[in-house]
């Protein structure tokens, strides 16, 4: 067995079980380097735990709640902003795009076609519409 530093940390965290645990215990019994490493780790952990807990005055750190502002929420917000921008662009496009319009000549042609079936159709009714630029 090589020197299993990671397994020592896991052992101290109580995360080793079964054959892994028995192998590490056997190794620690025969490997002075690893048993020394384990003793160093135990001391560091004990020192950290013995440090006093300080409470920061309010306002030094913003009340940032990772549950309230998760990454997903940011994504949703940007999606909303993007949708709003798209809608605004469509609305502006609709406003600046001219309303599609039916040509008067198309209507005249339909009226004229139907009127040509009437007995009265002829010199007494027919008219040439003035052609203006469309």
């Amino acid at each position, binding site marked *: 067995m090589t020197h299993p530093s990671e397994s020592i940390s896991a052992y101290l965290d109580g995360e080793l079980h079964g054959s892994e645990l028995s192998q590490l215990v056997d190794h620690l019994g025969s490997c002075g380097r690893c048993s020394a490493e384990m003793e160093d780790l135990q001391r560091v952990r004990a020192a950290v735990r013995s440090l006093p807990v300080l409470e920061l005055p309010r306002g030094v750190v913003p009340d940032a709640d990772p549950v309230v502002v998760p990454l997903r929420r940011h994504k949703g917000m940007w999606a909303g902003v993007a949708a709003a921008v798209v809608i605004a662009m469509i609305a502006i496009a609709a406003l600046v795009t001219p*309303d599609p319009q039916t040509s*008067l000549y198309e209507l005249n042609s339909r009226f004229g076609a139907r009127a040509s079936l009437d007995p009265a159709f002829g010199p007494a009714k027919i008219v040439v519409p003035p052609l203006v630029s469309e």
Partner: protein
Amino acid sequence: MRRLIAFVVFLTVLPATAALATDLDELLSQGKDASYSAEQVISCSTPDGERDALIRIEQDGDELRVSSSLGDDVQITAGAGGWTLTRDDGLVAQANVDRGETEATPLYTVEERGTVEYLGRAAMAYLLIRDGEPRAELVIDDETGAVVEAVTLTIEDEVYCERRFLSLDTDAPGIEESSDASGNIPATLVDTSSLPQSVAGFELLDQYEDEDGVRFAYYSDGFFSFALFETPSAVALPEATPVELSSGLYLRVFTAGQVTYVWETRQSGMALVGDLPPDLHEAVLSEMPHPEDPGLFRRWWRALFG
């Protein structure tokens, strides 16, 4: 004694009136198969000012070709339900329709006013009377049956439009049938409208719908006629005059012999195109869908999707 006199007068006048009366359709159909060329001046006194036109008419059987005499190369070929408008040999608009089975109820009585001479030719003058009011004077050429002069009158007995032949040539003009059907808009007869069957003496004869989504209804009183259009989009009407009528605000354009009104409802664009005299406009429009603001959303929708 008075009753006896009245009865004698009735018996005397009735046959005389019947003898003078002529069927309007029969009268106007006289020139349907004629062949001639003519130059016609149209002069109309409209509420928006004078509208004049000088046109050349060529008829060969049931085909009629009308062109502007003002050098702008505008030409219409019409007849038998077809209508083609070209300018500078380019197609501007074209339509083709069939007619339904509804016939206009005769609304006019026709009075013969005697023989006249027009352009050195024998002709007969007639007066068309609607609801007891003279509405048109016609002069019809004996040989061709063509209406060489037509004067339409307002209800105040004032001249609305005059159409007069300035020349008449009875040689067959030989009209070639238009082969360009690229812009043809076939309209299908439908029966789905909620429009009134009769309005101000005009009878709803036919209703159509075409592939462009344009629906229109054709009304006639036997002489004057108009079409009411319902279109998916607003109708472009350049150089129009805003007109406030009892039913709302419209845009209006008079041309020589024709009037067009345009407005919008919540659902669609509307237009009325016809040759009816001005005194009948308000009565007709008041019975049709009134102008409404379609609203911002519908404007957006039309702008985006037509």
